[in-house]
């Protein structure tokens, strides 16, 4: 038999437990569509001013690789990041930037049927994601295992990477870490432009030149997306300055000044050789800074 003291402990515990379960169960289920309205009253006292009027939705590294691939960009070995020790990256900024770099390299390798290299970058992405505390996304729907199982099947791998992007986006949103999304994309975009411009240097394909010019058009959105999350990490300010330094060069190019890619313009723009050299030099610098973890 319980003593009075023990009985009191049991009763108190059961009361707390049942109260918690009642509250938890009440909130856990997704409301049905027609009853959602009744459920949506937040406890947020700052409801009047915590939503920005403009936000940004940046594309995925896979889409950029896909656009370059469609333009006829060939695979060139040794252009991708040769970093083998992701533990070298010590700050969250350098981890996220290089997760972007590896994601871009992963996409480039997958779309060019470089299975072993793709597997290597997948592991590097996993390692950095673990370091950022988000490695669990790779286990969602057995993504890592499915990737390994489908090596050699380019289409399936591309869909698996797209799914990985989706669960990563959701994870970061749920954990209020949208700044990571923007930083990762800044790294991925820089790496994609680096690889694209290096392949262009060797082959001078006109189609690739046009696609490089088109990619430059989204740099403004990247800068703005970073500015929108600047308060979340003091280091983002330096990254904004870095990305803006590329945009400043782009904005001053004669091809851009003479043919601004305004919202009404349907004419594809391309760069002169001098312009490509100028841009490539700056992108090289930035990419070196990122992969060296500076």
């Amino acid at each position, binding site marked *: 038999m319980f003593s009075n003291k*023990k009985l009191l402990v049991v009763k108190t515990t059961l009361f707390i437990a049942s109260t918690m379960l009642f509250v938890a169960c009440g909130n856990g289920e997704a409301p049905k569509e027609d009853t959602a309205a009744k459920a949506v009253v*937040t406890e947020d006292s700052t409801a009047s001013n915590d939503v920005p009027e*403009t936000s*940004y939705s940046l594309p995925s590294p896979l889409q950029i690789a896909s656009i370059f691939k469609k333009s006829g960009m060939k695979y060139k070995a040794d252009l991708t990041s040769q970093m083998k020790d992701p533990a070298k990256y010590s700050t969250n900024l350098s981890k996220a930037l290089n997760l972007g770099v590896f994601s871009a390299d992963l996409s480039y390798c997958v779309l060019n049927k470089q299975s072993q290299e793709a597997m290597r970058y997948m592991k590097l992405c996993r390692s950095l994601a673990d370091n950022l505390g988000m490695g669990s996304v790779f286990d969602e729907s057995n993504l890592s295992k499915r990737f390994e199982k489908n090596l050699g099947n380019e289409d399936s791998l591309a869909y698996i990477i797209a799914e990985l992007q989706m669960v990563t986006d959701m994870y970061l949103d749920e954990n209020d870490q949208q700044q990571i999304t923007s930083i990762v994309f800044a790294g991925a975009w820089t790496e994609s432009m680096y690889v694209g411009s290096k392949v262009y240097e060797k082959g001078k394909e006109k189609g690739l030149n046009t696609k490089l010019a088109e990619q430059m058009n989204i740099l403004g959105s990247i800068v703005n997306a970073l500015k929108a999350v600047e308060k979340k990490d003091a280091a983002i300010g330096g990254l904004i300055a870095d990305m803006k330094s590329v945009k400043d060069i782009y904005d001053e190019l004669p091809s851009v000044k003479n043919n601004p890619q305004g919202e009404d313009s349907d004419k594809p723009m391309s760069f002169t050789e001098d312009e490509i050299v100028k841009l490539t030099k700056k992108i090289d610098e930035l990419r070196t800074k990122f992969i060296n973890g500076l």
Partner: protein
Amino acid sequence: MKKILFAGLIASLVVTYGFTTIQSMDNCDKKALTEKCKKKLEDFKYDSQKFSKINFLERDQKLEVEVPVFVGEKYRMVFNTSYLPKNVVISVYTKSKDAKKREAIYSTKDAIDGIKEFVFDAPHVRNMYVDYDIPIDSSNPKLSGCVIFMIGYK
């Protein structure tokens, strides 16, 4: 031993309670919404998604999401408003809200009441801006919800 068991029980309940509360803080089951939208993408490859928190205020509002796209790609946008307590008009433009003149290339303005999922296959454009026109609500100062859009390409 019993004390340890009780402590364990309390701890696990606190964790469960805390997790569930965090998950429902903005009353938006993001995982369920993501799954619903993904199905509607069909053979379009996932590119990105954006959840927007909507707070209904005593004044009307316009929230905008800038979506850079690339000429030559085919895009599908999927919207889901299941977690909004009131109708919000969704429009897609090729120019930002700061432009002097612009016309929507898509709008849910005339959508049938009760429809919560919208699919838009975009024409070839260089930029897209998703606007949410949020009506006034003075009945409840804390009324809010969320809307998602997902974009896929091929």
